[in-house]
């Protein structure tokens, strides 16, 4: 099955993200006290470090639900104007250069077709 099946439904990061998005107080601490939030939700060191490093590929590898990964990045970089040039998307391009290159080729092909 697809990438979404790689998620670990029991991973503390996945539980934490549900609450962070609903709680302005937790979001206000994201940039200054991520380690404290991670401790409160029982994250492993590995989970905390992947978050701290904004490491898209590692976040996927340890089982963070794919839907939460861009949201984690938006907590670091802001949510407005989330275009393909937003820093959150640039992090994806760095993590998955082959997929990003393939998309770029498709983009060019579509542009050519539209004239």
């Amino acid at each position, binding site marked *: *099955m*697809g*990438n*979404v*099946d790689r*998620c670990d*439904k*029991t991973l503390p990061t*996945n*539980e934490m*993200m*549900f*609450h962070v*998005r*609903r709680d*302005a107080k937790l*979001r206000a601490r994201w940039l200054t006290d991520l380690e404290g939030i991670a401790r409160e939700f029982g994250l492993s060191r590995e989970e905390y470090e992947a978050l701290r490093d904004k490491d898209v590929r590692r976040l*996927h590898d340890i089982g963070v*639900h*794919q*839907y*939460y*990964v*861009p*949201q984690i990045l*938006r907590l670091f970089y*802001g*949510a*407005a*104007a*989330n*275009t*393909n040039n937003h820093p959150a*998307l640039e992090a*994806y*391009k760095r*993590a*998955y250069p082959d*997929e*990003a290159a*393939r*998309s770029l080729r*498709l*983009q060019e092909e*579509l*542009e050519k077709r*539209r004239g």
Partner: protein
Amino acid sequence: MAEIVAAMAMTHSPGLTGWFDRAPKDYQEQALRAMGEMRERLARARPDLVVVFSNDHLLNWPINNTPEYTVGIAGEHVGPAEWYDEWLGLKEYRIPGHPALARYIVNEGARRRLAFSYLRQMQFDDGVSVPMHYLNPSGSIPLVPVTMNCTVPPIPTPERAYQVGTALREMLKAYPGHERIAILATGGLSHEPGGPRYFWVDEEFDLWFLDLLKKGDHQALLRECTLERMEEAGSGGTAELIAWVLALAFTKGPAEVLAYMPALAWRSGTGMVVWPHLA
């Protein structure tokens, strides 16, 4: 008895409101024209309410408990959820609910051995906010949101959705009232939100799927468009089309495709569809 008066479906990608102008001009024009057409047809159907089939993106339910279906039973729905306003570029909106009909779905569903969870106050991200912004901008059509889980495994199959959609159709038609009910499905087409193929749109899949809708043979669609095929075309996102399969159960015959755009800028195959004939 209540009456089904319209059935339509559209993509709900956040780019349609949050960064609409980043897509090519002709995509913007096509999308606006198609959504304008949907809005007009919806108004012409004079619905007393719209039942919106969408999906919960892990917003209302935590990952340790993701019900297959959830009904929002509020007297008034308020969106977008905290923190999503900036991403969607949307201000607060309010739409009246229809608590009596929403609660009927929950209870009548249980009698038919279908589990509908419910929320007295449902939160809204792109799934409901984006289509309501374009199709129900003044909030004049009351809303009953029905969300499903199509992002946390196990994802229900299209066959299962068609079965639930058929039961919903029977239930809504049997509702003891004279309500005129419009059906709107939101989600899809191909996309992989947050996955390695975040930037990808599978145009071939999308056109194939829309073609199946145009042919209007439901059994053929269910046979060919498996969950596996949806996942191949973009994991964790394309399966939002299960909402379209729910709506399909309210229709018969060919769908009319108003627009399709392989919109990489919106990170989603983007389409708008209306079914002229209702089941």
